[in-house]
């Protein structure tokens, strides 16, 4: 049994820096590479892609990444754990197997975790007491059931540990929690027991620090951001985890960015609710127990973490179509930039109304003036330019498309010194509304499989 493993973060979201995974497996020693690809509505986007093309529906970037890293991970025996399988983990694995064959890599085991997709078994699950009402608003599932485009259970570390035990070097999952990609390797390597709540919670918190990639190593840092060196070549975080549940957050030498108590603290705060109960499938982590210590440059020790027993429920992430939106932008310059933009907004609203178009919401913001901080924004006497940003939402596709046709005419029929309409007419985008819910764990079980290259 090992007493120390190094887990590197390779991706914080679907669309993150493509060069990072290769950097993480080649610039220094690591045992595991974890890559998170799934945000709240990502599954529904992938589900739609799969509907159009049964071979699609996973993070396509992952195939290019695997091409680049397969020789290194084979040579150094680095394991890869990722939820980039999305809505089609098996389709993703088939492509990776093809890559491996092209590179002459034979006999490598790939673990596949599925069973999270419950869209087709919803009726049966509801009969068996799944519940699935909206956990935030309390709204009944029957209100949206017919409109659902995806429904996925958030599995935790158990199925990942199971395939690692079977010798998987690569683990491709559907909707597993972002944090489980980090703590499953710890449970596997350190043989932690499933009721060792403090250690499980420590693993979860390591996962929370790694799951957003560069956000804990100097990216999006609101402290002294100017002091962060060489963000162009940012090094992503690495958790050096120990058998006793302590870990050190660091990054490879000769990379940019920085790992400090401040950068790690900011990531700890990211998208959390009640810090005393961060709920995961395997335990509840207490963020108020975390202690941080700067050991040396770019090394932060994380220790003292406490956890509590898990609940009997899995979180379920569902999404449904809820109308359309479109956003139009026009730039107005000095003199009277803001006054012109306001006038254009007024003219546009009058025309939309004259056309009899109906919107649930029309929202106007003035980028450069107050879009981010609203009434808190500092008043400026004279601004050089302002972007008028106007968005609409409606259940009627026609009305939203019709709005799109009203933006460009403002250039020749509205206030002067206007530009910035190079992108063409705003298109109607489908709104994918998010429906978070809970269901009893006993109603659903992950499926695992091993494919050998």
């Amino acid at each position, binding site marked *: 049994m090992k007493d120390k493993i190094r887990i590197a973060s390779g991706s914080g979201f679907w669309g993150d820096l493509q060069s990072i995974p290769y950097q993480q497996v080649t610039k220094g020693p690591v045992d595991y590479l974890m890559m998170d690809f799934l945000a*709240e*509505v990502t599954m529904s986007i992938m589900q739609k892609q799969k509907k159009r093309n049964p071979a699609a529906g996973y993070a396509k970037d992952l195939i290019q990444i695997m091409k680049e890293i397969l020789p290194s991970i084979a040579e150094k025996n680095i394991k890869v754990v990722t939820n980039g399988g999305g809505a089609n983990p098996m389709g993703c694995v088939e492509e990776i197997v093809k890559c491996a064959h092209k590179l002459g890599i034979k006999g490598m085991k790939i673990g596949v975790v599925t069973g999270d997709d419950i869209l087709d078994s919803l009726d049966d699950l509801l009969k068996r007491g799944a519940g699935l009402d909206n956990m*935030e608003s309390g709204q009944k599932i029957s209100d949206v059931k017919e409109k659902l485009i995806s429904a996925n259970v958030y599995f935790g570390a158990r199925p990942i540990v199971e395939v690692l035990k079977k010798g998987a070097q690569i683990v491709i999952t559907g909707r597993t929690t972002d944090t489980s990609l980090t703590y499953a390797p710890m449970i596997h390597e350190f043989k932690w027991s499933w009721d060792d709540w403090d250690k499980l919670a420590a693993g979860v918190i390591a996962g929370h620090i790694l799951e957003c990639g560069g956000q804990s190593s100097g990216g*999006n*840092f*609101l*402290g*002294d951001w100017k002091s962060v060196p060489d963000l162009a070549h940012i090094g992503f975080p690495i958790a050096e985890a120990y058998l006793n549940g302590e870990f050190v957050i660091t990054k490879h030498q000769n990379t940019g960015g920085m790992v400090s*108590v*401040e950068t790690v*603290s*900011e*990531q*700890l*705060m*990211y*998208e*959390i*609710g*009640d*810090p*005393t109960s961060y709920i995961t499938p395997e335990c509840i982590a207490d*963020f*108020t*127990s*975390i*202690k*941080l210590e700067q050991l040396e440059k770019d090394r932060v020790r994380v220790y*003292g973490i406490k956890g509590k027993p898990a609940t009997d429920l899995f979180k379920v992430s569902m999404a449904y179509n*809820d109308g359309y*939106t479109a*956003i139009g932008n026009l730039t107005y310059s000095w003199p009277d930039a803001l006054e012109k933009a306001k006038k254009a907004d007024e003219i546009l609203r009058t025309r939309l109304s004259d056309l009899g178009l109906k919107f649930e*919401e029309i*929202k106007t*913001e003035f*980028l450069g003036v107050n*879009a*981010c*901080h*609203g*009434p*808190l924004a500092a008043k400026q006497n004279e601004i050089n330019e302002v972007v008028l*940003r106007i*968005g*609409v*939402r409606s259940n009627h596709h026609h009305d939203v498309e019709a709005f799109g046709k009203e933006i460009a005419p403002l250039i020749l029929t509205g206030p002067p010194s206007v530009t910035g309409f190079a992108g063409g007419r705003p298109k109607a*985008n*489908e*709104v*994918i*509304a*998010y429906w*978070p819910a809970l269901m009893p764990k006993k109603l659903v079980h992950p499926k695992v499989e091993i494919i050998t290259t």
Partner: protein
Amino acid sequence: MSKIKLIDIAHGRSGDKGDAANVGIIAYDDKGYEIIMKHLTTERVKKHFEGICLGEVERFEMPNIRALNFLLHNTLGGGGTVSLKHDAQGKTLAAALLRMEIEV
């Protein structure tokens, strides 16, 4: 009495939780934490975000990292892809809270 800017004693990060925004504020030192504990009440924060936060404000204390976490409910115009806001995920709201000036 003197006026200080919150941005001089604290940093932070914000993000979305559905239609709620989470705003984490972290003091640089113990004295700063005392100040934010005392002055960043839920009422004060709600008032600060008038016109932006349309729901309740919840506050959670994290003395271990000298931080306060605020949940601003009904803030992101519906959240996710429903929202028409430019900052639909509330990413700039930590900076918005750090604009606050405090009498100490």
